[in-house]
């Protein structure tokens, strides 16, 4: 039983690390700041989540597990906020998405006008 937990734990940690590395590669490889933000999103979600899962297997049903879960929840609630702030900052300083056209007020950039809800 302990062996199974040990193997599952390391599998989760290694998979999580692989996602973190892919995220890091994406940060360098993707063309502009908005695209790179999506790569950072991988690290925030599945990278952190899988490493958490691996550590949770090692912790067992202890207080450490509760603390780990709190860390995960805080990351899941704060990372979209910081990501959005970064995005707004980029838009305000005049960085436009690839193939983008400048909207009249300069802050919003719309490449392909599309009302998503009209399709539903």
């Amino acid at each position, binding site marked *: 039983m302990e062996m199974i937990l040990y193997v599952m734990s390391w599998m989760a940690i290694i998979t999580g690390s692989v*996602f973190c590395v*892919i*995220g890091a*590669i*994406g940060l360098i*490889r*993707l*063309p*502009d700041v*908005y*695209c790179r*933000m*999506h*790569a950072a*999103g*991988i690290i*925030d*979600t*599945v990278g952190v*989540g899988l490493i958490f899962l691996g550590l949770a297997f090692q912790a067992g049903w202890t*207080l450490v597990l*509760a*603390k780990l879960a*709190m860390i995960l929840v805080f990351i*899941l*609630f704060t*990372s*979209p*906020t910081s*990501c*959005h702030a970064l*995005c*707004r900052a980029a*838009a305000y300083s005049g960085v436009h*998405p*690839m*193939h*983008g056209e400048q909207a009249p007020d300069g*802050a*919003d*950039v*719309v*490449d*392909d*006008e*599309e*009302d*998503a*809800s009209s*399709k*539903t």
Partner: protein
Amino acid sequence: MIHTLALTAGLVLLWLLLSGYFLALILALGIASIVLVVWIAHRMDVVDHESHPIHMAAKGLIYFPWLMWEIVKANIDVALAIIKGKNAIAPKTMRVTASQRSDVGRVTYANSITLTPGTVTVYVDGDMFLVHALTKGSADGLGSGDMDKRVTALEGYVEHGTEGVG
């Protein structure tokens, strides 16, 4: 009142889980800290349905696992796009109309979009979201409006004076 109780219960749970000690002195310090925090929060007038959306708690138990699964699927999509390189991505900015009626609902929807890799909410103006999508798959996934409907169901809008819109 119910929001104050929720805040107090949350703080008690947080203290007990973080400390793990049940000594009289430590518990007394915990009670003192909690009373102080609740009092300050009251003075700041931040204890309401927005900081403690307990009306969403029960439905959140269904929504959260669904969101987790969506995040896993989106992650695989974006990770593959990164590995395949520049030809696999199709970055575009699109407008999405949110059907939620309360601010909490819209914030939940906007943050869910951002949390899902491949889509980031850039700008929110009323019920119009400006979203940057990385791949065709992530843009189509958002365009289907599935997440929008689920967040609107989660929000469970009830009309009672304090729920500001816009």
